[in-house]
């Protein structure tokens, strides 16, 4: 059972604090914050154990936290509960907060604290989770969300520590879907919209000779629903979708996943024959299907890199030497599609002092980050089928031949809008019975690089 729940900003400000059982004092917040910030780097989700006064294990207080939206979402407990339950609950709390407030940031939590208290009050009683379903909660939640402006240059409060919020924040759909679900009541935002997103996370390791060593796709179909009343929705997937390794692949371009799991509300009676998911979406965001595919990509990996690394002495007498890194990067996507926000990180030898570069177009940037021993090359748009090259001259005083071993592996991050690597598509989206009034349905596809590593 949960003793307290609190939300802290990355700087340690108390945004939300609720004590469910009165077992512990409010000081535990500062105890937690001291512990989590005492060491550099991210801390694992169970932050250490705060022993009782004489180190008695059973009377100790445990903190479990997740980081979302640059905030700490913390539950403290005196018992020894299932970590999965608590972590998933905190994630769910963050997701609900996002549903109700539109976006997840320090600012939106600050502005909507009354709403979040109301949510917590219904979700947890005496430390026991009561319900987290939007359908039930919406009957009880009365506070209107105050939505912050979608984006402003001055609103930097949602940038995490060192801007470090990596993949998770990127997975969020575009601005259209980031508004509070409850803002209906005849206001401007109250459009009857439903978004169905197919999001895939790609993690790939390519060996030194361009051989694909590991490829792994984690995908999910996520619904964000703004419809006030629930009606059954039918989502049609590719009919040729096959599941599992055992099924033989014919000559057709079958779409295959290794395994998939569904939200428990999904009805699967038409799935086996027609690949149709039936679901009554409740308001807010939910994942209806998760799937994964390992090792066998149906298409070539989106990027191929042809690197060459050489040592070059400028002036041997004063031991001024440099490393020449020539990178040729090819995008193997179909010609009509584009990769966005491509960034390439190349580790460079320790002691690199400066760098000059030759890039092929002015919108690309490159910089040397001595702190990370790496150079960063960024390409905002990369059309499919194109090939870009760049030459980097890195000055490294006192270079030895072994230092070249330090160059690599190259890691990339990017997003591929309108693309799924598995080829999973949504054939149709039907609401039945047909909604009265306008209801707009959106299907969006995106693939993110979870981890894309190329060895040199």
């Amino acid at each position, binding site marked *: 059972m949960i003793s307290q729940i609190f939300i802290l900003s990355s700087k340690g400000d108390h945004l939300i604090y609720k004590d469910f059982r009165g077992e512990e004092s409010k000081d535990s917040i500062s105890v937690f914050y001291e512990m989590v910030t005492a060491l550099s780097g991210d801390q694992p989700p169970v932050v250490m154990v705060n022993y009782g006064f004489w180190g008695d294990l059973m009377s100790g207080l445990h903190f479990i936290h997740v980081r979302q939206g640059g905030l700490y979402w913390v539950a403290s407990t005196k018992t020894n509960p299932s970590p999965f339950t608590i972590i998933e609950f905190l994630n769910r709390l963050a997701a609900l907060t996002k549903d109700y407030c539109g976006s997840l940031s320090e600012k939106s939590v600050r502005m909507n604290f009354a709403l979040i208290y109301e949510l917590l009050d219904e979700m947890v*009683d005496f430390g*026991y989770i009561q319900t987290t379903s939007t359908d039930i909660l919406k009957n009880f939640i009365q506070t209107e969300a105050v939505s912050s402006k979608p984006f402003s240059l001055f609103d930097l409060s949602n940038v995490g520590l060192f801007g470090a919020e990596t993949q998770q924040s990127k997975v969020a759909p575009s601005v259209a879907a980031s508004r509070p679900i409850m803002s209906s009541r005849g206001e401007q935002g109250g459009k009857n919209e439903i978004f169905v997103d197919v999001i895939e996370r790609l993690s790939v390791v390519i060996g030194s000779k361009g051989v694909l060593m590991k490829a792994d796709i984690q995908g999910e179909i996520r619904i964000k629903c703004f419809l006030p009343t629930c009606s059954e929705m039918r989502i049609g997937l590719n009919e040729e979708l096959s599941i599992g390794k055992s099924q033989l692949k014919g000559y057709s371009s079958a779409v295959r996943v290794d395994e998939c799991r569904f939200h428990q509300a999904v009805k699967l009676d038409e799935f086996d024959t027609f690949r149709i998911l039936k679901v009554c979406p409740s308001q807010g965001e939910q994942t209806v299907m998760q799937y994964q595919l390992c090792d066998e990509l149906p298409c070539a990996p989106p990027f191929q890199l042809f690197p060459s690394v050489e040592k070059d002495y400028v002036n041997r007498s004063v031991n001024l030497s440099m490393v020449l890194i020539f990178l040729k990067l090819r995008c193997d996507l179909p010609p009509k599609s584009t990769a966005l926000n491509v960034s390439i990180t190349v580790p460079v030898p320790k002691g690199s002092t400066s760098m000059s570069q030759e890039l092929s177009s002015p919108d690309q940037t490159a910089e040397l980050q001595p702190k990370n021993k790496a150079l960063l090359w960024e390409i905002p748009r990369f059309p499919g089928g194109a090939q870009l090259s760049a030459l980097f001259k890195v000055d490294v005083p006192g270079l030895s031949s072994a230092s070249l071993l330090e160059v690599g592996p190259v890691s990339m991050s990017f997003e591929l809008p309108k693309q799924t690597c598995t080829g999973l598509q949504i054939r149709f989206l039907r609401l039945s019975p047909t909604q009265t009034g306008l209801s707009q349905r959106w299907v969006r596809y995106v693939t993110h690089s979870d981890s894309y590593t190329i060895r040199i």
Partner: protein
Amino acid sequence: MPYLGSEEVVKELRRALSNPNVQADRLRYKNYITKVIRYMTQGLDVSALFMDMVKASATVDIVQKKLVYLYMCTYASDKPDLALLAINTLRKDCADPNPMVRGLALRNMCNFRMPGMTEYIEQPIVAGLRDKASYVRRVAVLGCAKMHSLQPNTEIDGTIVNELYALLRDPDPVVVVNCLRALEEILKDEGGVVINKPIAHHLLNRMKDLDSWAQSEVLTFLLRYRPRSDDELFDILSLLDAFLLSSHAHVAVATLRLFLHLASAHPTVQADALLRTSAPLLATCGAASRELRFAGLCHVQQVMRSQPGLFGTHYKRFFCGYSEPSYIKFRKMEILVELVNDENVALVLEELRSYCTDVSPELAQAAIAAIGRIARTYSEKCLDILTGLLGLKQDHITSAVIQTFRDLVWFCPQSTAAVCQTVGACVDSPQDSEGKQALLWLLGEHGDQISSAPYVMEGYIDGLKTELSSAVKMELLTAAVKMFLCRPAETQDMLGRLLHYCIEEESDVCVRDRALLYYRLLQRGVEETRKVVTGPKSDPSMSVLTGRQEEPISEWDSTFNTLGPLAGCDLCPQTAATSAADQPSYDAEEEISLSLGPPLSHETFEKMWLDLETLHRQTLGFPRPRAAPDTLQAALQLVKIQTLAFTPGDTVPWKAYIYTRSTETLILAELLQGDQQAPGSDESLVVSVKQQPVNHMLLNLFFFFFALYDISLLTSTCMLQ
């Protein structure tokens, strides 16, 4: 309190709340109430507004009611007499026609944590248990538990317990689960809620109606049910089968735990359950949420203790992602080491090799250590990689490789010749004390096989004056004596100089004593020394040959799906014991874990310091660190020692009070320099230690720890960061 002007703020709020104009304007009034709650969250004491807030509770606006209730619950225990005023309103609300209002009022009334509440809440709770709205029943059921926790020592009310047992048949699933929770708390002293056969089967049949949170909780309750027969057991298992593959990780894992527990007499069933849950567990390891990923990895490690081969084919899933936080990467590397087999060893090594040049030195060192672990089975391939890494000439890598070599030679004697050749050819030496110790150990132990050993060692002996770490000096002494035994001609002269310096000029007592010991030993003759100094050159337990044991599932299933696996050794002592056994014996200092624990107040510290007797006093042999107090404090925190107070700047005598904890013992210590009354304190630090309760072994370890992490060294690393 973060706000200094709290009185002003409270005064202003009170003025606003009691202003009739504001009260007339509902929106403005609510705004002020919101403000009060906001200040309350920030830590401001707004309890003085209690009266005004009680007035605000009499409203039809539910949002405002909720805010006021939140306020009242927070401060009721501070203002019990005022809180009684609110009870009338609350009791009236408990009879409201709207079930939401009824539930809200009842829940909050039960949340008032103050003595004497029971008489007011008992009747509404009993009424609530029979309410026709399930929302109110849910609240009322937990209200019973709250009522019990207000008066934990009173006799258990039998009628309420019976009523709760009856409510287990309630049509509302949340009411059912809440009943279990409430009974568990009320009957805690009698061993909790009783799960007999009818209840167990009833719960099992209701599983499908429950939401995922309730499912995992019910699964945990079912752990205490023992089926009567195998037939019943298999009926239960087949009922639960679908939940093993639930899309909610917490349900799948809770089901697995129940499976393992129920089927403890049927190993094949257990193995089958593990096999089938491996898919959801693996999916969790790749979840979008990093925290969930970590929990998944920790549990995969647990499963692998009994079924090392289960995830063998999926080893690529444990390759580290580029952007993953290091706590995940460390776990993944540990798993990769366990998963290595003949087919994948080349790929795994190539992957680990690419982590060795990571920008984080800790990660790089962990990767090198991981390769070292694999080297115990696949020596040749790993030695090639490790030797290649030495060519990078980076301090932290060289040091880690040398340490890995030391461990490797100890566990895997057949690799000795190759290691010695590499060490002999290695030109640059590690710079940190850990690495130096490892190199010296290798030189001393296998000096006969490393031709350049005496010359390398001579370098260390010549640089002795600038060496700060006493652990390195001790290792140097041992290594030199061992080397003397196998190569006397080359070593005699330098050993003499080393012993002379350590006995005559060294200020550290431990080093001096060690030198004296060796000196006297050598006086007894070479054979005598050889008998004492040389020991086995490799791990005598032959753990390499037997390989890792497959532990029975019962070793770990009791901590499965608890915080234990995530917290590591902190929560489950048996894993600590096994991992300690894995370590070479000279790493013994790692076995004690000091922890910071909650801060002590100055008063408590002072009282205990005066009450306790000094257990031990020792001169440390180095002067006080000349660092800023902040840096020193941060440095001590790194080794889990809290600082209470310092003498500022260069005042003489200089004092510092510090404390730390280790599982059961609180250790208090005073650092002192330059006090006339304390002998030996003018040049170096004197530590006095007090303990509660007394634990002599811990005391020794604390000193060992303290001397090992020489404070001045620590502060310098801290300043670098």
